[in-house]
């Protein structure tokens, strides 16, 4: 059973369908006990960092999520990826889940913002599971990006600056783009996450 954390930050129907297409049972929940029963934890999210942190704290999910990230395959998508980091600067400074050291800051580029559209992945060496996705296009929509140590970086996208696209630390994976909106490539990336854990 794959649990998708449903904490009021955006529609989770597409993410849920993507995992169902891969043959998995999916549970949408904001209940810590139910999350504890799941095989995999998915933290999605669309909206602002600060609003998401408030929703997580309102549901007392901060400690359970930090704990789950230590023991289960854990995937953050888009805003859910950004929440994995220590601190976010969107809508004021707020504390993230601090599962991966780093900050979330406005993208610094001469190109248009938001970074909306299909961009190509550049996979860092030594990430076998993601090597097949080199130069594949995936769908991004965001104005803030993760700043973290390069050792946590699996893939990036070129946008006048190197935007972290996939990050990984132990059993925790973060994906800045929307795999559930990235056609067949996106579904394959979700499959790679499930298989790598």
């Amino acid at each position, binding site marked *: 059973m794959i649990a998708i954390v449903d904490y009021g930050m955006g529609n989770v*129907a597409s993410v849920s*369908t993507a995992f169902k297409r891969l043959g998995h049972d999916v549970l949408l929940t904001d209940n810590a006990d139910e999350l504890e029963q799941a095989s995999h934890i998915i933290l999605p999210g669309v*909206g602002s960092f600060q609003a998401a942190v408030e929703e997580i704290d309102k549901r007392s999910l901060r400690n359970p999520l930090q704990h789950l990230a230590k023991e289960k395959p854990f995937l953050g998508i888009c805003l859910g990826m950004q929440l994995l980091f220590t601190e976010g600067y969107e809508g004021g400074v707020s504390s993230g889940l601090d599962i991966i050291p780093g900050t979330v800051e406005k993208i610094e580029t001469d190109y248009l913002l*938001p970074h*909306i*559209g*299909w*961009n190509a992945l550049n996979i860092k060496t030594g990430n076998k599971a993601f090597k097949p996705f080199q130069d594949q296009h995936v*769908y991004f929509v965001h104005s803030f990006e993760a700043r973290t140590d390069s050792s946590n970086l699996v893939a990036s996208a070129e*946008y006048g600056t190197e935007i972290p696209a996939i990050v990984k630390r132990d059993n925790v994976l973060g994906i800045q783009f929307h795999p559930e909106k990235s056609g067949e490539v996106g579904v394959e990336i979700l499959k790679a996450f499930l298989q790598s854990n």
Partner: protein
Amino acid sequence: MIVKRIIPCLDVKEGKVVKGTNFVSLRELGDPVAMASAYSKDGADEIIFLDISATNEGRQTMIDIVRETAVNVFVPFTVGGGVKTIDDVTRLLRAGADKVGMNSAAVANPELISESAARFGAQCIVVAVDAKRFEDGWHVMTHGGSKDTGIDAIEWVRTAEQKGAGEILLTSVDTDGVKDGFDLELTQAVVDAVRIPVIASGGCGKPDHFSEVFRKTDVSAGLAASIFHENTFSIKEVKEDCNKKGVNIREAGLL
């Protein structure tokens, strides 16, 4: 690098995709979800639904279509048409739309843009602008391109950006339906006026109109409706033409 996006648009009336050059002679083409799904499998980079329903029942049906699309289509989709209030925006996003387009209501009340962007983020707010050339520049048109607001279109897109629009969907009333190509001059003028992505619309009659607008302007995406309907041209033909002419596109749908 980010690619140029190719976007088919589906006009939906009372739950059915329709085609027609004017509102009196509309022809039903089929089911919106099935058509959106087929386009996404063919390599469409995004889908736009324009709801032209005249009734409340039609609007309610659109919500069901959005819900169905969200679980059947795996590329982003935008819904516009008849979005008047923040409640309309909320309903469409909750149903699963990735972005919501607003047009006349935003002109009448620009705060609709700022309120929507503040609540949901600029990335999901698309401001649709219908522009027509006059002696003193381009004017914003409303009511399906028939009513001149007298507002300068270039000024208006700047205002829309400042209020929090994440994207501009620009339709040239002059080229719309003419099928002789996108309005290159208007498109570049709007692209130059803002720092957010612009989608060009109006005038596409054949595949190489896409490569033309991508090569001759700095627009981020192009939209067409009728050329994709009833298999007149396929997304693949557009992508093959772009690829041949060196336009950076997503390969899905090419092979």
